[in-house]
Each structure stands twice: as structure tokens, then as C-alpha cells.
């Protein structure tokens, strides 16, 4: 049942993607409310899928890849919708909606890896750790979106091209400021995610750190974003370089999320032996 609802969610996200494209291509014909409403509908259906799964398993399960992907894309859309309320960034949605579709789609196509959590580990440490880490990465997904827009806008300006599409994008200054805001929110969340994770590991397995591939990749992105944030604050770094680094960081996180845990089985991939 929850799988079916998850599939419906993916379809609605695909519809949202289509309405965002329509909004970008024919802005004079469409209202910005339509794509936001479709995405919100997808979010509601998605919440239902998660709730159904919760009642089925009786525990906020996030260890299977499918569960993790579904939960992550749900958080990402949720964070975007909150940002949309404050900043009115409908164009950003056209980056988030397809991403949400892709992740939800992969959730039910190749998301079967991972075992159920051994009963002994069913404490609230895991949901806490995962929620914080995922929230951080959800905010980085938004940072990724604005950085992509920044590069496109910048490329057009430098090369003296103009198109109706790019005049819908916010100004470079706005995009750069948003990159900073998302970084400032995402970084502490990611830090807390790593801290709770290692505390939990200490309690269960006796060590804070076990050099799992996921831990290494997280540490690398954490360092990358940390360095970027430091450079922005202390040295006034901004613009294209900041956008590029943000994109690299996010691609590492997402790529590893989708592929890494299946290639290198570990606790993060749902192996608890």
C-alpha cells in the first residue's frame, strides 16, 4: 500500500516538474501558484506514504535505501516549500521538483538494498541522526539549485546573451546571498547530524568513528562546505567559485547517497552484522 502511494507521489512530482517547465517557458500564460500547488499536493501524498509506512513497520524506519531516499526527498520538498513561503522563489522549484521526482523514482525502482534494523537498535537515536543529517543535505539541495541558476545567469551575462528564460531568474546578487543563507543553515544541521551519528555509534558499537565509506564522504563534504563557509565569511569569497564548490559538494553527497552504499555495504547501507 505505502509503495503504491510512493509511486503516486513520484507521478505527482513529475506533474509538478512539467508545470514548472510550463511556468518557465510560458510565464505570461501561467501563474506561479500552479506549480507550487502541484508540488504541495505531491508533498501531501508523500507525507501519507511515509505515515502509512510508519504504521506498517511501527517505527520510523530509514535503514533501507528505499526508506532513506523517500524520507530525504520528502524533507527536501518540505524545506523548499517553507523557503518558497518566505522568499517567493518559484524558479528554484523547477530545480527541486525534478530532483524530488528522480529521488522518489529511484526509491521504488532500485531502493531494495538494506536490512531491517535489529530490534536492539530501535531507539530514537537513529531517526534523530538521520533527520538532522538529511535536513542539512536538503538545505544543500536548495543551495545546489541557486548555485546552478547563478552559473547559468552568470554565463549569459558574461557572454552577452539574453533570453526570456533567464530574465525570470533572480539577480546574481540575490542568488549569491541565498547560497550563503542556505550554507549557514545547512552546515550546522550537517554538523549536528554527524555528531549525533557518532554518539549513537559510540553507544552501540563502542567507537565514535569507524571509517566507513559514507563517513569518509560525509567528512569530506563537511570539510568542503566548512571551508567554503569560512572563505565566504572571512575572505569575502562569493560568486562563481562559491557556486561551483556548492555544486561539487552536493553532487558528491547525492551521488554517494544513490550509489555508494550499494557498492560499499556497511551500516550506512543497512548492514548491521
Amino acid at each position: 500500500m505505502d509503495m503504491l502511494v510512493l509511486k503516486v507521489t513520484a507521478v505527482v512530482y513529475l506533474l509538478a516538474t512539467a508545470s514548472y517547465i510550463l511556468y518557465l517557458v510560458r510565464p505570461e500564460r501561467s501563474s506561479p501558484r500552479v506549480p507550487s500547488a502541484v508540488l504541495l499536493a505531491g508533498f501531501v501524498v508523500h507525507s501519507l506514504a511515509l505515515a502509512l509506512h510508519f504504521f506498517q513497520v511501527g517505527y520510523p524506519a530509514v535503514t533501507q535505501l528505499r526508506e532513506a531516499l523517500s524520507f530525504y526527498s520528502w524533507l527536501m520538498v518540505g524545506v523548499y516549500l517553507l523557503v518558497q513561503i518566505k522568499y517567493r522563489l518559484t524558479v528554484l522549484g523547477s530545480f527541486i521538483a525534478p530532483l524530488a521526482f528522480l529521488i522518489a523514482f529511484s526509491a521504488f525502482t532500485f531502493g531494495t538494498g538494506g536490512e531491517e534494523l535489529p530490534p536492539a537498535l530501535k531507539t530514537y537515536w537513529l531517526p534523530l541522526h538521520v533527520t538532522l543529517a538529511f535536513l542539512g543535505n536538503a538545505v544543500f539541495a536548495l543551495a545546489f539549485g541557486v548555485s546552478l541558476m547563478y552559473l547559468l545567469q552568470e554565463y549569459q551575462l558574461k557572454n552577452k546573451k539574453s533570453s526570456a528564460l533567464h530574465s525570470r531568474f533572480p539577480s546574481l546578487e540575490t542568488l549569491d546571498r541565498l547560497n550563503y543563507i542556505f550554507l549557514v543553515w545547512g552546515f550546522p544541521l550537517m554538523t549536528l547530524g554527524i555528531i549525533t551519528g557518532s554518539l549513537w555509534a559510540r553507544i552501540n558499537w563502542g567507537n565514535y568513528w569507524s571509517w566507513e565509506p559514507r563517513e569518509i564522504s560525509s567528512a569530506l563534504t563537511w570539510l568542503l562546505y566548512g571551508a567554503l563557509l569560512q572563505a565566504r565569511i572571512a575572505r569575502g569569497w562569493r560568486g562563481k567559485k562559491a557556486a561551483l564548490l556548492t555544486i561539487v559538494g552536493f553532487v558528491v553527497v547525492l551521488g554517494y547517497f544513490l550509489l555508494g552504499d550499494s557498492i560499499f555495504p556497511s551500516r550506512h547501507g543497512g548492514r548491521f552484522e
Partner: protein
Amino acid sequence: MYRQIIIVGLNHRTAPVEVRERVAFDGSLLGDSLRRLHALSSIKEGVILSTCNRVEVVAAAPEEGVALRDVKAFLAEQESVRGRPLEEHLYIYSGDGAVRHLFRVAASLDSMVVGEPQILGQLKGYYSAAQEAGTIGTVLHRLFHRSFFVAKRVRTETGIASRAVSISSVAVDLAKRIFDRLEDKTVLLIGAGKTGGLVARHLQRNGVRSLMVTNRTFERALELAEQFRGSPIRFEDYPHYLSLADLVVGCTGSPEMLLGPETVGAVLRERKQRAMFFIDLGDRRNFDPAINQIDNVYLYNIDDLKNVAVENLQGRSREIHKAEEIVDEEVINFFHWLESLEQVPTIVALRGRLEQIRRREMEKSLSTNLKGLSEKERQALEEMTSAMINKILHAPITRLKGLSEDQEEALYIDALKKLFGLDEK
């Protein structure tokens, strides 16, 4: 029923400004002028438009020929100075031509700068003035409201108003793609060239508050500073102020380049990489093209700006085509409505509607609680209900036929259609 719509007038294309000025209606006397127009026996409804680019009389009349003659004479009274006869400058529209013309005016397709938004507000103003003067009735009321609607459709469904086609508006557009807001930005204007001044003015109109001006001769810089309410800077000092400037507009005739990549690179470091927009309007390059390669620096020269303007202009002609299609569509819609204002079809439709109700109710009753009636009783019931309908309709139809061809008739017909929902199928 009068339903001839005519427009007689002149605009920026048909008449030079001297003629337009002489024909223009004085705002304070507009009410009087409207009443004089309305007093003409050939005119039933009238509106006068008088902006700096156009003077037009829109009227509804029973007979086109007489009305046109009278309106021309009415306009000629305005022009008291001798010269070429006014007739040469006038255009005349009637019927669907007149409706199309008014829709095009409202949608800013007939403006000097196509897409400029002021004309709609002006049109609304003159419509209200006519309403106050009591010179407007059902036909023009509807016509003007439709024209406002057309303007709105054109605005929302086409990109006609959203494209910059002059160098200064392109520069402002670009600045808005780089900067979040212009209110907190500083402009440095180098040189006294005319285009530079235009761009600076346009930037100020779009929010820029802080402006620095420099020129080789300091006296000229002082003059410019006064003209733009900016701060004058000595030419030998301006490099020190560069780091304060977010936008740098160069418009000097200098044969050698003023700024190269080394200087600008250093300025950027001083500004902690905050973006800079250089606009080079010099005949020969004022800024080294290489500075466009520096991160967070954007350089546009006059040719780049012209190219964008030309692209936008091409895009705009596509949008104009779309807008004209909307106008055509709405002209047809308007005439559907106008034709429906005829007496006879309205009476037929009204009878039809009541007859339809009678039949439906008869059928309903005869198949349920009056099922047992004999053929004779049924016949009597038919006659009785038909007679009722005829009695009900008698008074309104006689009154309608007795109405003269004036404003009242259109008003009553329109009201009847609305009350009985005769337009709905």
C-alpha cells in the same frame, strides 16, 4: 436602434505637435466640451480623448454619415488658427474599424512607444469624465469596458510591455540581472557624453540614489554633478573612488583606454569581490574588453547594448502580432453583443424562453400528478397557460416597441437580456 460607432481624431503620426496642441481639449473645460458634443442631434453618446499624443472623439450614433460630418465640424471648432485645413490630419474610423482602433489604443499598440502603460490610465480617466458629464450610454459603456479588458489580456498574455528596446533601458535591465536592488548602489559616470547622461538618468529613475561624476575639465564635472544631483570628482582622483562604484559608466571621447584589467582586478579585491558592472559608451573603447574576463565583473559596450535592444525589438514584433490577434478576437465578440441589442431578436428570444418554461412545466405535470386528464382538459390547460404567457409579455413588449431609438432602448434590451439570461444557451 443606433449602433454606429465612429472615431474621428488625430495622433502623433498624422499631425505634428503644433496641430495637436491647437486641437487638444482643455482639461478644465472637458465637461463643457463633452456636453456640447452630446448636444449634437446626430450623436447619442460621446467620449473625448485628449492626451499629448492624440485627440479623438469616440461617438455612438444612429447614422454614420451625419455623425461624421458633425464630429468633424466639432473638432474644427477647436482649431482656431489658420493653416492647412484640419481635415488633412484627421483619421476616421467607423464600425468594426472604430472598435478595433479603440482596442488598439487601449492595448498601447497605437502608442508612440508600443507597450507603454500610461495610455490605459488616461483612457480610464476620459471615460470617467464622460460618465460624470452624462454623455455615455449602454454602447460606449460596454465598448470602453471591453477595451480595458482587451488591454489587460494583451498585458498578461503577451510580453509586449516587458522588453527593453532602448540602450538605457537595456542597461537598467542588465543591472537588475546583476544586482538585487539599485537603491543601495553607487554609479560613477566618467565623461560628459550624451548617451552616458541618458543611461545615468535612467538608472536614477530606477532607484539609484548615489552618483559620482567626473570629467577631464572639472568645471564640466561640476555642471554635470549639479544636473544629476551627484558628487563631482576631479579626473585625476577618480581611480581612488572606483572601489565605491557598483556601476561605472564611461562616455568619454578619450583615444586611449581609461581602465585595464590590472586596475579593475585590484579594485575588486578592495571591494571583497562585490560585483561591478561597466558600461562603455565611448566612441572608442573607454574600458579594456579584457576586464570582462575577471570574475564578478561584467562589461557591456555600446554595441553589446544595441544588440540586446535589437533582439528585444524582434521579440517585441512577435508579441505585437499576438496582441493584434487578441484585438481581432475581441472585436468579433463586441459585435456579437452589439447585434444582440436589436429589438426583434430580443423579443423572439424572450418569448422563446417563457414558452420553453411553459412546455417543460406542462410536461412535468401531465406525466405526474395531472396524469388522469382527458384530451379536452389537456387542451384547455394548454390554452390557459399560453394565454398567461401572452398576458405577461404584452405590457413589456408594447413598451419596448414604443421606445425611441435612443439610449433608453439599448438600456432596456440589455437589462432584459440580463434579467432573463437570454444570452445563455
